[in-house]
């Protein structure tokens, strides 16, 4: 079925149709609770991309989702389902915080390098244990990664309330603020003429995320390691025949995956919160799964899907402020519908579209024949 579709239809048309379907069903849900779906759509779109303020938040969320989406995508290529993004990103945050709290770094440019190493290292380390258990013991990685989310969560609570707690912070378990010298320039610092406010969360990490997209593209489609990861992911028996070690690929792919997800903390912990708080991830680890699925595990697709989910997050937030009765739960329903249609119900749309293309193609062929 798949090869009957042109590539552009596979990458752009189908996700678009899926999205429209999801919005239609969301509209019905909104109408059912007695609100005007068109007004809701207007607020959603306007709130996310209608102003510099909205863009600042949209692209901030997008940055998070690019990192987690890329991480999940790399694991997907090795046919590993890494749903441990929440834990790996949280540990990434721990890595960032340790680097920034304990290393005397004079300038943000040095700090972002050191903190990136810390974030990637801690994220990768958190992915390494499930990867090892999968590769050596056959423990299913879906089970172990999700369990490691809970372990990470408990670990963070312990560390923040007992070990890293700033003296005199009162009730909120968080670390001290990072020093001003390592504060990442935000969109206002870089390009004030674009109209971003001084407090916009969008910061230079966005460029790091774009660089990560290019890195993943080159890794997967240009390097020998990427070739081996894809081979192994497509067929494990063939991988063995080709001399590709399943242990090595499982470990390496998960380390890269966890490292990329850990990098998310550069954006959220270093760039925005400027200290480590109790839940720095805010569900971005799970959104990364949807982003990777919708983006077909391709960096460009991941970028576009992350942008969409970033807009949904920001627009959804606006919706709860602007529209009476639009609770957080309704926003969750809308986001879930988008995930459902773009991820799980993909084949529902794919088969009819493939059929349309097939008949379109057969018609000119018949004409040429007769």
């Amino acid at each position, binding site marked *: 079925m798949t*090869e009957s579709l042109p590539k552009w239809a596979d990458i752009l048309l189908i996700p678009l149709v899926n999205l429209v379907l999801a919005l239609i069903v969301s509209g019905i849900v909104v109408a059912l609770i007695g609100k005007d779906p068109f007004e809701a759509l207007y607020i959603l779109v306007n709130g996310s991309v209608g102003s510099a303020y909205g863009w600042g938040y949209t692209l901030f969320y997008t940055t998070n989702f690019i990192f987690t989406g890329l991480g999940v995508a790399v694991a997907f290529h090795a046919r590993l389902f890494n749903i441990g993004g929440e834990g790996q990103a949280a540990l990434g945050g721990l890595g960032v915080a340790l680097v920034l709290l304990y290393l005397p770094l004079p300038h943000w440019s040095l700090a972002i390098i050191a903190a990136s190493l810390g974030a990637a290292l801690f994220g990768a380390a958190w992915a390494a244990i499930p990867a090892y258990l999968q590769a050596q013991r056959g423990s299913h990685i879906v089970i172990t990664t999700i369990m490691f989310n809970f372990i990470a969560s408990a670990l963070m609570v312990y560390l923040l309330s007992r070990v890293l707690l700033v003296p005199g912070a009162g009730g909120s378990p968080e670390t001290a603020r990072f020093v001003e010298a390592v504060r990442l320039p935000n969109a206002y610092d870089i390009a004030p003429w674009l109209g971003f406010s001084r407090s916009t969360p969008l910061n230079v990490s966005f460029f790091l995320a774009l660089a990560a997209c290019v890195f993943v593209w080159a890794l997967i489609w240009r*390097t020998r390691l990427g*070739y081996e990861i*894809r081979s192994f992911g497509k067929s494990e*028996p*063939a991988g*063995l*025949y080709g*001399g590709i070690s399943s242990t090595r690929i499982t470990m390496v792919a998960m380390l890269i995956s966890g490292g990329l997800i850990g990098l998310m903390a550069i954006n959220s912990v270093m760039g925005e919160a400027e200290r480590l708080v109790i839940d720095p991830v805010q569900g971005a680890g799970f959104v990364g799964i949807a982003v990777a699925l919708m983006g077909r595990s391709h960096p460009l697709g991941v970028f576009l899907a992350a942008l969409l989910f970033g807009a949904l997050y920001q627009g959804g937030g606006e919706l709860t402020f602007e529209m009476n009765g639009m609770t957080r739960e309704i926003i969750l329903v809308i986001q879930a519908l988008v995930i459902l249609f773009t991820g799980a119900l993909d084949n529902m749309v794919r088969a009819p579209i493939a059929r349309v293309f*097939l008949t379109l193609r057969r018609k000119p062929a018949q004409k040429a024949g007769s």
Partner: protein
Amino acid sequence: MTSDGNPDLAIELRGISKAFGPVQANKDISIQVKRGTIHGIIGENGAGKSTLMSILYGFYKADAGEVLIGGKTTPIPDSQAAIDAGIGMVFQHFKLVENFTVLENVILGAEDGALLKPSLAKARKLLTDLAQEYEMDVDPDAVIEDLGVGQQQRVEILKALYREADILILDEPTGVLTPAEADHLFRILKGLKDEGKTIILITHKLREIMEITDTVSVMRRGEMTATVKTAETSPEQLAELMVGRKVLLRVDKVPATPGETVLSVRGLRVVDDQGVERLRGIDLDIRAGEVLGIAGVAGNGQSELLEVLGGYTQGTGTITMNGEQIDLTGTASDARTRRARGIAHVPEDRQREGLIMDFGAWENVAFGYHHSEPFCRGLFMDHGAMRDDCAAKMERFDVRPPDPTLAAKNFSGGNQQKIVLAREIERNPDLLLIGQPTRGVDIGAIEFIHQQVIALRDQGKAILLVSVELDEIMALSDRIAVMFDGRIMGERLPDQTDANELGLLMAGMTGKDAAA
């Protein structure tokens, strides 16, 4: 519409057509099969045999045409309708519940009521009757997984007979059988024919068609090219009808001139994940410039032999390659180090192991050699070099269509095999391991592949050939070793043995048993 046909015909197909997307699998096919005959359907892979039979058994719906059974138009929307019309099907891959007994399998789906006892009693009686009538003795209380393949196949036939099938369709029934088991099956089929049953035999083996059918239909590219009386045709003529041109059924080769020993195997043992010993002490030598053929029924350790030599199953014993001992268990034992030693491997299952089906041909030609020039430069793959290499190989091996970007899954079986063969042969190995070289490959490509193997031998390379096709072993090998239950039962020279003797060895009988 219901134009009644000749009631002497068990089955008549009129103008059956079926398309899958742009592929016309069956094009205006008409056959008449007389009651009480054995009718063969022969054709290459992808010729449309299986599609046609699936239509007859209600798995697919024909786009056009009608099916007449016993002279009456009979629509077959599903397999229940086919069973009701008296059609029984024995699939190539058996559809048995492994942990049920024979009796339970026979009545499955055809129970007379909510209580099983009457059905079981009825089936037991039928089985006893049939066992006497045609050598169909199967223990009714045996569990399927404990039975050999030959017996499992008999259970499939019994299932069809229990459902009162008058027309029995068998799809490639001898693929998994020893020659003796195949002979037994043919005796059963002849007995059923004498009882007035009609049998349709789908096969790609010309010998079987000649041996047991009354009439034969040849299919090529979805069309029925001829229906002839078996007595009035010859294997050569059938092959030509199948392929559309003259085919060399024999392999032309000069006697081998073996050189030094390339591979030497002593006391090789392999234990699988379940702790079952799959290889129980194999000794063999292969010299440069000769083909050693391993004959045997599938599942007697041949696959494990290839895998351990190819480097991706661990074993114990000693393997010496070009005088150097190969590490069999350590970390330095994998497919990559074997390739570095000059061992190339065309695996038995090219779709599962030999190729990444979703990859383009150009990515597949580097597979296994992706660490080395010209495919790899430092950490990066050289896509240009891979594409060029693929295009050149496609030309030399006549791969069709010669499109390097096409995904491996979109090539025919023969062309897939040519891609694997080109990749492995052109690396100039000292030893080629080649498993089931022509399984699922059309006759035209078989000829080409056989020629390539012999050409490689004549260049002075050592070749280990594993095949379940005895004809292929006989045609290509300079020496034949027969495997049974993880052991080598004996070695023979192809011109000093015959299918009978090899068949007995394949069934586990040694020379003495065979003589007795």
